[in-house]
């Protein structure tokens, strides 16, 4: 299908090449090895070529794929560690290839950075060229309009009294009204003509699109530098204050400063869940989460009641707060052997299985004489199978139960090394209660108390609260990324749907006194509506001159259909424009003015 790819013009005249950096660069690209600067220029031309851009784009697509095949560190560091442990043979090799950090890897970055350099190298000269094009006149009238993709002729009868120069002025006025930029040439001569162009926005759109892509990338990078995020668990009644110590977990951006944190506060008043009681397949699934919170922008600002939901974050102090998790927190009171309250409050139970089957770990470092530890499960609706396996039959608190083992000894909290609050290391502890001990395990319903063996103390199950997990994010790049993305889309749509076209009209006087008009249209880039445009212009002109559009010409113009590239030429049919010879010299006079001859 090589015939479609147009031969790129004939050798340009020398002055043209000087004004045309790309053509010049291309000429040089054809014969590299012209010293160091020549090489550099050659490399630059290659990098900014369409082919390279295409190649880099496809490479980017391919390079993005492994990130979906292997676990990624930023999302799931622990899974990556596990993956490496599970695949001792190649896990480490993949790591050295940065396949667990694909999107920050050297190779992925290299591709998109090259792509964006290429993009800049392409956009800048194009923007300059387009700026010039927008300020210059439409190109000169080609000698043979009949060679243009859309061509037509009109004949104004001699008695209409419209000479060639008036006809061109009329055509100019019509085209101007249609949004064309029009330049009339030679209007006192024997063969006045005009050149017209419209659709400059197409190129502007394309440039805006590509530039905005750079904007999106920069905004994303800026967000990574100046943003931060963190997590916190809030039990009903708890208050979070936005300071570093307020977070359970905190991830600062590279340029983060703690002074960025605005000390707002947010208190969880109540958390409600609605469970699905209707559909069979999903019975008991949560279908609505709703957290009532009280917020203060600053420590002394007035309190405000707000609702936090999934898909509906609360914005506060430049951050957004998201509801990301929830569960039950049984409230317990533990007294030590001396009868003093060693611990009292809610304990966050970690989800383990269906229907809020959750694990519970309680560490009581303040108990005397020995520190106490508890580990076990919390079930909102406890059931026990015949084999003695307990499970939760419903997500709601129908029959809440705490089943625990207890230990005493040194919890190891004083050593200073950080511990996971959800895990109890029992190696150095002595078990007190467990199913396999004489004392058995502890099973508590709300409002009950259990006395530990050996006078170690008591544990009471006072009630159950709910907790939520919130993510707190601050991303200053986000808004800009959105703005650039919207700009990009606007540019894309403009670039795809604005058509850039040129129209030329030439008039002349036949020896018998009739005024002969011919016009031609040319599209730049994709334009499936060029034929329709030709029809419209024809209509405008015939209307202007009061002609009958069907009889006004000597040759058949392009077909009446509007779009589709070739449809004005029904294939194989005879008697249409395709087979009729077009007059080389429709307007009788010397063929081709001297200036337009250059074009041929």
């Amino acid at each position, binding site marked *: 299908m090589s015939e479609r790819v147009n031969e790129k013009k004939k050798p340009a005249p020398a002055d043209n090449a000087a004004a045309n950096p790309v053509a010049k660069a291309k000429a040089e690209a054809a014969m590299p090895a012209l010293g160091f600067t020549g090489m550099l220029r050659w490399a630059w031309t290659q990098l900014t*070529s369409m082919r390279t851009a295409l190649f880099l784009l496809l490479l980017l697509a391919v390079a993005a794929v492994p990130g979906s095949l292997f676990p990624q560190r930023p999302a799931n560091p622990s899974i990556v560690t596990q993956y490496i442990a599970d695949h001792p043979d190649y896990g480490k090799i993949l790591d050295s290839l940065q396949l667990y950090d694909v999107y920050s890897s050297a190779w992925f970055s290299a591709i998109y950075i090259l792509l964006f350099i290429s993009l800049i*190298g392409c956009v800048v000269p194009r923007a300059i060229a387009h700026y010039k094009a927008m300020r210059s006149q439409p190109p000169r009238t080609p000698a043979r309009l009949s060679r243009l993709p859309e061509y037509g002729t009109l004949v104004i009868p001699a008695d209409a009294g419209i000479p060639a120069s008036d006809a061109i002025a009329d055509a100019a006025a019509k085209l101007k009204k249609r949004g064309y930029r029009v330049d009339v040439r030679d209007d006192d001569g024997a063969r006045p003509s005009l050149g017209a162009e419209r659709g400059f926005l197409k190129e502007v759109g394309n440039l805006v699109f590509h530039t905005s892509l750079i904007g999106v990338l920069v905004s994303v990078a800026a967000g990574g530098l100046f943003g931060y995020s963190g997590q916190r668990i809030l039990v009903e009644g708890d208050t979070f204050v936005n300071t570093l110590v307020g977070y359970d977990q905190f991830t600062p951006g590279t340029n983060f400063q703690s002074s960025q944190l605005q000390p707002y506060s947010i208190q969880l008043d109540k958390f409600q869940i609605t469970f699905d009681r209707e559909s069979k397949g999903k019975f008991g699934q949560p279908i609505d989460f709703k957290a009532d919170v009280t917020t203060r922008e600053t420590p002394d600002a007035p309190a405000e009641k707000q609702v936090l939901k999934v898909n509906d974050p609360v914005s506060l102090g430049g951050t957004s707060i998201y509801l990301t998790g929830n569960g039950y927190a049984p409230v317990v009171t533990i007294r030590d052997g001396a009868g003093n309250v060693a611990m009292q409050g809610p304990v966050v139970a970690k989800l383990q299985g269906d229907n809020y089957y959750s694990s519970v770990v309680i560490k009581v470092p303040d108990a005397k004489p020995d520190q106490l530890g508890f580990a076990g499960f919390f079930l909102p609706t406890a059931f026990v199978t015949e084999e003695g396996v307990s499970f939760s039959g419903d997500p709601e608190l129908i029959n809440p139960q705490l089943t625990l083992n207890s230990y005493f000894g040194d919890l190891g909290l004083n050593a200073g090394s950080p511990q996971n609050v959800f895990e109890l290391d029992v190696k150095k502890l002595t078990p007190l209660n467990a199913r396999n001990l004489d004392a058995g395990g502890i099973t508590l319903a709300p409002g009950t108390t259990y006395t530990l063996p050996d006078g170690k103390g008591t544990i009471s199950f006072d009630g159950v609260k709910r907790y939520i997990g919130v993510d707190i994010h601050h991303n200053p790049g986000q808004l800009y990324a959105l703005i650039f993305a919207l700009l990009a889309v606007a540019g894309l749509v403009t670039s795809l749907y604005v058509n850039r076209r040129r129209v030329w009209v030439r008039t002349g006087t036949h020896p018998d006194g009739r005024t002969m008009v011919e016009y031609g249209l040319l599209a730049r880039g994709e334009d499936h509506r060029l034929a329709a445009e030709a029809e419209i212009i024809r209509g405008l002109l015939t209307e202007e001159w009061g002609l009958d559009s069907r009889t006004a010409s000597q040759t058949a113009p392009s077909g009446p259909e509007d779009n589709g590239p070739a449809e004005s030429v029904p294939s194989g049919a005879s008697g249409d424009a395709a*087979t009729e010879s077009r007059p080389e010299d429709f307007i009788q006079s010397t063929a081709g003015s001297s200036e337009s001859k250059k074009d041929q």
Partner: protein
Amino acid sequence: MLAINETMGQYSELFMLLAAGTYTVAFIAFAWDLAKSSKALLAVDLKAAAAAEASAAATSKVPVGAGVGAGAAVDRADSDVSGPAGRAERPSSATGRASNGAVAGAGQTADAGMRYAAERRVPARVAVALTVLGAVIHGAGVVTRAFGAGRVPWGNMYEFLTTGAFVAVAVFLLVLIRRDLRFLGTFVVGLAIIMLVAASVAYWTPVGHLVPALQSYWLVIHVSIAVLSSALFTLTFAMSALQLVQAHRQKTIASGGADKLGFMRLVPSALSLENLSYRINAIAFVGWTFTLMFGAIWAEKAWGRFWGWDTKEVWTFVIWVVYAGYLHARATRGWTGTRAAWLSIVGYLCVVFNFTIVNQFFNGLHSYSGL
């Protein structure tokens, strides 16, 4: 939250099955049309060839293809600066006409404009009528599903498939109003049948509420645009595949080979296929850009970050880049035609992959497929 209506859900499933049945008959009619019309066309061709031979001596035709081709190049000298090196002029109306003139005659193809021709193709009409009927029933199935669940019917794989199949058929029928794309009938209807069967057999899910993460108006916006774009990509995929076959056939015939693929006469020339699929792909690409953006906005609302390289996000991005590559290819010298068609096909394979494999076997934040 509206209550679940199980009866509606059951009606919906019945409608889906009826629709699949109607489509199956339509499929047979489309296939019959292809077989029958290619024979009829062959006969017409033979007659025309004989007539042409007779008149060839009398009229000496002007090879307009060459003339126009050269004419189109008139003004290219200064268009050069506006593009980077290696930029091709896209196949446009001018060049399109030129090559069409060249292929006309031997190895006949259907009308390049994909307009309806005067002659009646009875099986094709029956097929379209049946497809319309099937689509009406199918639409009823989608609507009853929506009422049964009390929300938009695209919250799990079953619903993506049934609604997606409906949108694909509806888009096809809409395009049929203006263009004679009946040659794509077997493909589109066949795909709809596969989707409906897969939904009913492998992904069946009773009507139910949405998980909280999906309860957002962004579900309505983001997913509907994604499904629409995918339906358009489906059409262009079929056209690009046909384009490859047609290009091969045209080449064989041009070099004097035998025309082994007679039914391809019903299909327009490779170039017209490319041009129309480019236009549809351009619309779909804009749609996909919105899908990506709205997805990011939704992700920001739901998860607190607009982009996190979740598997679904990765693949949406990959698809976007592949189709951006396709648009570039159409403007790159040496990449138009067959290569561009391959990119369009690869892009569609990624769409399918994203929908099937990624939804099922990769777990990420998007794992709500209801499996």
